[in-house]
């Protein structure tokens, strides 16, 4: 029982990371109907840049805003190079391929800069577990949960309360109408990409102390986060938190009771099943297609 509680707790922490990345997918999907297939690589870059900064002697807490800034710039670059030209020529294939290509480039650059081996990210909090409901819980796991939820809430509040947020929501509802109302939709889309990569980079520095950091850490994380985004529904705000928790717990328990080699399988299988059965996600609404 104690082990199970512990697995559930790490599962929740992991799930929160998925939720943050999935949140990033939602942000760009909301404004432009596009996704960054290199989202996992944005996370990986965030973690590695964070590692370098910490290595240079920057305090962990001070490093976070710097990494967020880096993530935002990286996201804006992806949008400018990979997505905007494709939106202009209305080519779905175009942005899928170009964000994949950019992801590959980022990964390859990271491999060459930081090496191919996984690196240890020093934990900013004590690594001795605390007792919680009889289970051993790492303080870092609590930070992950708090940080992830805080991040998502901050963006939600921004979208709902500020006039800039209204522009984002308007672009989501009808891109052309928003443009006619004087909203610079191009800028809004760039902004959403910046925000999306920012949250991925933030997730990267949160998860890094719990796992190992390296060029290959992003790919599978990005894919599983997509599973979470689908389970939660690409247009449903908080469904992803539940989706993240489901997947996170499924994964830690599979890893423990079956084999760590199989730990990625439940998420991917869940993705296939949800898309085959209810593509709008468990919490999303099915859109009516006009003919």
């Amino acid at each position, binding site marked *: 029982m104690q082990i199970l509680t512990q697995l559930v707790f790490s599962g929740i922490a992991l799930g929160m990371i998925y939720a943050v990345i999935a949140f990033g997918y939602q942000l760009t999907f909301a404004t432009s109907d596009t996704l960054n*297939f290199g989202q996992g690589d944005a996370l990986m870059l965030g973690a590695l840049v964070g590692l370098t900064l910490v290595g240079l002697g920057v305090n962990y807490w001070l490093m976070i805003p710097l990494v967020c800034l880096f993530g935002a710039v990286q996201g804006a670059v992806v949008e400018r190079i990979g997505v905007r030209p494709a939106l202009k020529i209305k*080519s779905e*294939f*175009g942005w899928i*391929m170009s964000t994949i290509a950019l992801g590959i480039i980022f990964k*390859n650059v990271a491999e060459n800069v930081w090496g191919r081996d996984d690196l240890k990210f020093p934990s900013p909090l004590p690594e001795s577990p605390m007792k919680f409901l009889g289970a051993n819980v790492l303080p870092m796991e609590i930070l992950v949960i708090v940080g992830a939820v805080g991040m998502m809430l901050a963006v939600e509040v921004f979208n709902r309360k500020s006039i800039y947020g209204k522009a984002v929501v308007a672009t989501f509802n009808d891109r052309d109408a928003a443009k006619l109302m004087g909203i610079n939709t191009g800028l809004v889309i760039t902004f959403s990409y910046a925000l999306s990569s920012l949250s991925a980079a933030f997730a990267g520095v949160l998860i890094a102390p719990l796992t190992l950091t390296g060029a290959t850490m992003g790919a599978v994380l990005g*894919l599983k986060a*997509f599973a979470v985004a689908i389970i939660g529904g690409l247009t449903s705000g908080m469904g992803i938190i539940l989706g993240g928790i489901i997947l996170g717990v499924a994964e830690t328990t599979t890893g423990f009771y079956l084999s760590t080699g199989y730990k990625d399988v439940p998420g*991917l299988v869940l993705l296939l099943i949800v*898309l085959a059965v209810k593509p709008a996600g468990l919490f999303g609404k099915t859109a009516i297609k006009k003919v």
Partner: protein
Amino acid sequence: MNVKKLVLGAAAIAALAAFPLASGNPYYIHLVETIMIYAIVLFGLDIVVGYTGQVSLGHAGLFGIGAYTAGVLILKLDAPVYVTLPAALAVTAAFGAVLALPALRVTGPYLAMVTLAFGTIVQILINEMTFLTEGPMGITLTKPSLFGHALDETEFYWLVLALLIASLVFVDRVLRSQLGRAFEALRGSPVASDCMGVSVYRYKVYAFVISAALAGLAGSLYAYSEQYISPNTYNFELTVMFLLAVIMGGRKTRTGALLGATIIVLLPKLLDDLQMFRTGAVVLAVIVVASVAVGLKRGKLTKQAAAIPVVGSIALAAVSFKLETMTDWRLSIFGLITLFVVYYLQDGIVGFVRNALNLKTKHERDTTAAKATALTRASGQGQGGNDGELLKANGVLMQFGGLKALNNVDLVVQRGSIHGLIGPNGSGKSTMMNVLTGIYQPTAGSVLFAGTSVTGRTSSDIALSGIARTFQNVQLFGEMTALQNVLVGLHHSFKSNLIDIALHLPRYLREDREQRARAHALLEFVGLESLASEEARNLPYGKQRLLEIARALALDPQLLLLDEPAAGLTAPDIKELLEIIRKIRGAGVTVILIEHHMDVVMSLCDRVSVLDFGQKIAEGLPAEVQANEKVIEAYLGGQAV
């Protein structure tokens, strides 16, 4: 078949076959062998990517399944080659069907993610199922033996070549047949495909299964060719390389696939040679700068648009002199090439060359020896006579959220009549069409067509039972010719199966000849005969509407639904259209006509129903309806009392 093409093909095959003898170098033989194996994968991938227009990131996984099916069979059962190859083909095809299941529900980025997840799962399973696959250790095998004779490198090369040619002929024949047209139609307009009786579901599965089978065959050949397989070969990078090869070579051409395969196999080898890469990068930069300069001068490019390729290519050239070794940066180079191809070489090398040389995309040869009649008498007409009820909708309710787009609408259409359906914009006319053709499932109510219920059946099923339609916003298969569009409508009259097509058996050849003649006749009927080999997207708007009618008639419908056929037509065109619609009725086809041109409605229709805000407010003879106060009120607004 074109004689020049035949000679060229024979020469190419002869050159390929003679290559191992001429070169004698096992390294080069193996290289060409790999190119041929990849080409087989690409033929299949092109069916999914080029024809049905879906992005598949799962083909490396399928390739791996093929390789491992062969590998495991050899490892566990010591199976001979004539067992392993068909087994790899069959097993991978089955996996292709599994992969197609989510593909039925989703498209675009979702499908890309699904196929990516599939590929990842395959890789994990191969790694983990050690009892079967030896896991990360990999499997070592030897070249196969045929009829008791162990093949050496050269002989195996010939086997691969033979299978490459077989795949090429097979894929080419399939794609030129009704199957290929169905695949292409899915890409052009899924809704229209369904309404032409070409089930989107079924043909997507077919496309994936055929595509997967080819990947499986290639995978098993790859296992024999490498003589060693390990899970990490079949990774994400390989999948992206396959995609890159298809788009770089050129979609929808077999030459493009061969070219793409050559590039992705040879490019890494070229990158290994640093000096060559530097020269290449400099040449590329010069070409890009020169072409951008020309573009700027002619005003075809904005400065902003020009900046990216110029800066990119110069940076690449500069970097190439900085780097000590290229191999580490291989993937970045591939990434850059992908970006370049996606934005500047969308039609691939083959498309680019065709454009540059002004060669038109060659569409199938057109031989109309046999004459056919455009309209066969509507089937079933004899039974009910001319005055039975063909269509009976009862209390149809269509609710979208709180909005009742159709509110308890009854509609009875007499066999052999032209029934007008009019009403102001947003009154529910097109919604009614969509309910009748199964695109929407009504919330309540029943629709009986020729005595059987329509509700709950799929669009393609309804289409095949005799309801054809046109669309308010034209839904043609844009990249296909006018003739091919009509042939998609004729899909239902093809009975030949995959074997007939692959072997060009008499049944297929006869059907193909007959249906082509029929398609020409249909085009002639609507006056588009001279535009038969023009791509649909290039036709003027009015002609597109006529083409839609021809395509709908190809279904041999009992009931034809025309959704605003006269919209956007000029006065003389409308006159022609009236003539065509009268002829259609003359052939015994019942017509429901939605139209805003009142003169068209009044001169054609036997009965008219009027909808307003989802309710039927009037029905009767055209003259009666015209005089009806409610109708006048709906169109012109109520009197201010």
